[in-house]
């Protein structure tokens, strides 16, 4: 067991290094350099001096090694655009993003399992067909457009919910205000994720319902409810853990768009801005932070799998 954990941990670290190399190579491959150096009034000498002070005149492997060395000492550098430490900028935005992602994830997992299991128990019924339709809709709808439509319906049309931000400016902080601002973005994020979880929950439940151990449980004379919920559901939920972990990279992409639509003050918006301004240290910092979260989620999912399902053999 310990060997398995150590092995997976080493794999995760290698993966993070590969991701950071990919990202580093990508952003430095471009002609033009960072946005701050594109100011038209700068002379060639001034640009060269600025590049030198930022270390951009060094060969790429040297720059990467320097960046990695700083990361290992807990430093992510200073944002070109905002002049503040990257760690400070990320720390300021991370809580809002986590709040949104966690709420969206929780909503989609709960609703997805409920809908998927109901579908499986009533296969080919009206409910099942409706759920399939909803799943296809969720797979096919552009996240940002769904956001715009909800804004038109609930903010502009019904005046029920606010359309942007995480709280009302100038108003005293209250839980109701926070929840009202969270409702639409979390709903949009959940909708984008719902389809996958519903489909997996349905097929996983169907598979378990046809399994031999379930027939045995019925043959023992257990009541139908106990068979379905105690023996069936528990086993059907195991693969869902993996699906949730696999959904996180997509969810992170969705959060960048959702935050843009609703002007949510999170990391997604910071990422979009830093990419557009070619703010190298900030892009690298955000990519690293997000990759760590994603890789950690996958690692935990693999571990929980071993604990949840005794049939899983360690290799």
């Amino acid at each position, binding site marked *: 067991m310990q060997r398995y954990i150590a092995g997976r941990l080493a794999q995760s670290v290698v*993966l993070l290094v*590969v*991701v950071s190399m*990919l*990202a580093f190579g*990508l*952003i430095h*491959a*471009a002609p*033009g350099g960072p946005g701050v150096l594109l100011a038209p009034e700068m002379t060639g000498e001034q640009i060269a001096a600025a590049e030198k002070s930022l270390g951009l005149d060094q060969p790429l492997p040297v720059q990467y090694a320097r960046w990695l060395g700083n990361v290992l000492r807990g430093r992510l550098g200073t944002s070109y655009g905002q002049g503040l430490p990257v760690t400070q900028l990320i720390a300021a935005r991370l809580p809002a993003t986590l709040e949104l992602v966690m709420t969206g994830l929780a909503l989609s997992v709960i609703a997805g399992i409920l809908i998927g299991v109901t579908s499986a128990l009533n296969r080919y019924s009206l409910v099942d067909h409706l759920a399939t339709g909803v799943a*296809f*809709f969720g*797979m*096919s*709808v*552009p*996240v*940002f*457009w769904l956001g*715009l*439509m909800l*804004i*038109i319906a609930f903010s*502009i049309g019904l005046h029920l919910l606010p359309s942007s931000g995480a709280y009302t400016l100038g108003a005293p902080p209250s839980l109701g205000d926070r929840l009202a601002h969270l409702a639409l973005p979390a709903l949009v994020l959940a909708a984008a994720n719902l389809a996958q979880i519903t489909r997996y929950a349905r097929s996983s439940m169907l598979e378990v319902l046809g399994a031999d151990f379930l027939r045995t449980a019925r043959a023992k004379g257990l009541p139908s409810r106990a068979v379905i919920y105690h023996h069936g559901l528990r086993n059907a939920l195991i693969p869902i853990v993996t699906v949730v972990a*696999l959904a996180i*990279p997509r969810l*992170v*992409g969705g959060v*960048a*768009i959702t935050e*843009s*639509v609703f002007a949510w003050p999170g990391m997604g918006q910071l*990422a*979009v801005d830093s*990419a*557009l301004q*070619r703010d190298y240290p900030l*892009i690298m910092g*955000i*990519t690293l932070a*997000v*990759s760590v979260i*994603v*890789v950690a989620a*996958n690692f935990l999912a693999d571990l929980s799998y071993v604990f949840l399902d005794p049939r899983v053999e360690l290799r």
Partner: protein
Amino acid sequence: MARAALSRNPLAVASAAYLIAISLTAAGAPAVTPYAPDRIVLGAGLEPPTPRHWLGTDQNGRDEFTRLLYGARISLVIGVVSMLVSVGVGTAVGTVAGYSGGALDALPMRLTDAMLAIPLFFLLLTALAVLGSTVVNIVLVIGLSSWMAAARIVRSEVLRTVHLDYVTAARSLGAGTWRIVTRHVLPQAMPSMLVASTLGVGQAILTESALSYLGVGVQPPTASWGNMLSHAQNYIFASPLLALWPGIAILLTVLSFNYLGDALRDTLTPRPA
């Protein structure tokens, strides 16, 4: 046989009909609409739908219906060509991995796992901001970031067929690796690849629209469904309908590709129930 089975699925038939109709209308856009897609008419902005302008006009007085048709050209072309790039790369990676085995199998597949585990959307955004948002770059960036599913599918199909008797027979007759792969192994993977490709077009269209919405996709004045939505958001109070049409176009198109892909999966890749 497959066609007969497909024609019994009314949703798949409707999806195919819609996709053919929208492709033809987009291709023949100049004959369908009298307006030019990027001719700005001052003082005629944000008009509601009228017999002259079926879906009204946008903020610059351009006919919304015309821009939807011309936007369809860009969005569909980007969707289809990105899919071709991603299926091409995926097929190459999957074939090499499945046929060679050993290190040539392990390395590409670990790379595939790595690509699936990282938040690619940020990297797409950065790549386009840095490289410039030309249509070619958009296609390459979407294609090169979405080949992993195709690679896995092709690899498993290659693994399945490579030891079948007729492949062994072909090899004993002296057929070379290239001939075995292209004539005997890959054709077996065609049904699964067709399903993955159909679903892939829809995903690519969604990605393009999201990139355009964030401003790093198709650049104005060229219309794409994504950048039309991005501009419509600025006029969401004055003219909420402008935000409706491009979204419906994307939704119906992606939905059609998804339904079609699903129906193809049911008919082309039968599994024991």
